């Protein structure tokens, strides 16, 4: 019988709350474990006073949880987190290590990979695990124009990061798992801490987070002005939805900010309905919406590439169509 594959998922927590991306990755790990028939899913949680959080992880697919609870790990910092994880990985020798590509995960993963001298694939859009333990990692390049397979044939663990919104979490209410409490003092020495994270400042942006919205109204360069942009905001408000944007619109300063940018260098979203206006349809935007339910696009240019990626194509000026749409929606609601 082949050796049992072990897949680790590094759990990110902020102020004692598990990051959504970590549960999404845990969901994917469960699927990989099922594919490889004989694999174990292990969640690794670092933080301070995070016992309750660790208890929840088996319900999201972890067969086993390593919990490192230490006051020095309250805030993420790459010296502390990578030291603890490197020691655990060297001791346990997992076959695969998956990390959410959040702001901190994007730093932690390459740091660990360099310390371990192993391979890391960034922003995987899909993963496959063969029974022999080979992980196929699919990564986007050139803003999503091209998808490439990446392998890590010799070194272990095979490491990958995954952006938020790419996979779905699983909920297994009945499932239980073993929780292994680790000793922080033997995994982290004060002398190796060179940087000090002094505080976390949370700036919760107003409005519905774009990754949770059922309806997204998105605009691009073609919207033309901040004034026109308000039309998108009003429309989104009718659905308690969110307004998304492309990089060019963000650079113009019309939008709600970088947290609303959709695409390969921004958010990956999957609303029930996406309505795009004034967006040409560059691949680096489209890869961020490909899993949306219905895609409607409005563009004056009949040949706009976005029409190839849409369910419904409206070749018209958004300044004519959207005010009329807004009026009809308001009438429909009364």
């Amino acid at each position, binding site marked *: 019988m082949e050796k049992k594959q072990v897949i680790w998922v590094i759990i990110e927590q902020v102020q004692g709350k598990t990051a959504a991306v970590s549960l999404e990755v845990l969901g994917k790990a469960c699927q990989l474990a099922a594919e490889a028939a004989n694999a174990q899913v292990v969640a690794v949680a670092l933080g301070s006073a995070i016992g309750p959080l660790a208890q929840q992880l088996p319900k999201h697919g972890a067969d086993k949880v390593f919990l490192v609870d230490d006051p020095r790990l309250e805030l993420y910092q790459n010296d502390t987190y990578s030291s603890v994880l490197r020691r655990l990985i060297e001791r346990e020798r997992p076959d695969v290590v998956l990390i959410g590509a959040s702001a901190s995960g994007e730093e932690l993963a390459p*740091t660990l*990979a360099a310390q371990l001298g192993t*391979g890391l694939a960034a922003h995987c859009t899909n993963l496959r695990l063969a029974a022999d333990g080979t992980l196929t990692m699919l990564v986007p390049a050139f803003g999503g124009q091209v998808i490439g397979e990446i392998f890590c044939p010799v070194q272990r663990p095979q490491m990958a990061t995954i952006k938020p919104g790419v996979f779905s979490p699983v909920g297994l209410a009945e499932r239980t798992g073993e929780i292994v409490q680790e000793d922080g003092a033997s995994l982290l020495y004060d002398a190796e801490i060179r940087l000090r994270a002094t505080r976390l400042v949370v700036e919760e942006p107003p409005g519905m987070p774009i990754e949770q919205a059922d309806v997204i109204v998105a605009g691009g360069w073609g919207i033309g002005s901040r004034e026109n942009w308000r039309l998108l905001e009003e429309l989104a408000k009718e659905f308690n939805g969110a307004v998304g944007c492309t990089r060019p619109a963000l650079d113009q300063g019309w939008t709600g900010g970088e947290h609303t940018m959709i695409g390969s260098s921004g958010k990956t979203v999957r609303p029930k309905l996406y309505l795009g206006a004034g967006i040409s349809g560059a691949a680096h935007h489209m890869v961020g919406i490909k899993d949306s339910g219905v895609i409607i696009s409005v563009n004056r240019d009949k040949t706009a590439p976005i029409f190839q990626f849409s369910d*419904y194509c409206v*070749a018209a000026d958004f300044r004519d169509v959207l005010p009329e749409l807004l009026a009809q929606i308001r009438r429909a609601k009364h």
Partner: protein
Amino acid sequence: MKGLNISVLVKPVPDPGCYESIQIDPQTGILVREGLPNILNPADKHALEAALQLVEQHSGRVVMVSMAPPNALETVKEGLAMGADEAWLLSDRAFAGADTLATSRVLAAGIKKLGLCDLVLAGSESADGGTAHVPSQVGEILGISHLTNVTWLNIDTDANVRARMKMENGYIEVEGALPMVIGVSRGMNVPRYTSLPGILAAQDKPVKVLGLNNLGLDPGSVGLAGSPTQPGKLSRPELKRQGERLEGEPAELAKRIVAIMRSSGVLS
């Protein structure tokens, strides 16, 4: 602290405006990227701007370091025109096919060869590969502290560093000391334009080209041979959808969209 010696890591990348025209050769399965104009990776310009501002504040010197083929020189010169003092091009056939770790080994060797370096700055991510791995990995190989996704940076005269690292909703404030590698987020500053005097001055600035032997690297540690990850097949993502055309006057179009919204369950 007597002036800052800063290395800025830069990468020539195909112009992101042309990514739509990138094709995969159906015979060889290899990317066709000939004819695509190269530019300085956009995020790296923000790193260079940060370096130039720090040198204006503390005095010092800015050297750009790039791992690229010799023909990248023209692209790198844009950084000299912006105000960098010198450019080092790390160029060797043996470096081809490198993943981020093998690339970081070459860049770290270049920085070591430069000697005294207080601070290494780089754009947090490149426009082409976009992995955002290099700043952290260079820091690890050099054995000095590192931060990436930095949106705000302050260095005092005692070499103490305070930085803000971008998080999903907000930031983490971090304190440390030089030497350090910092990945600069595009939100940190607005890069200066090149001026005509800058372009003229760039012509006389020193440019060095160094290969494997100059850097004292083992050929097995660089390029494709030294990369723990290996590439497999390339494909185009399948994004195509049905694309039903809606036609008519604005009122008629709006009516159709309302009907679609109803059937998709977002409007009752």
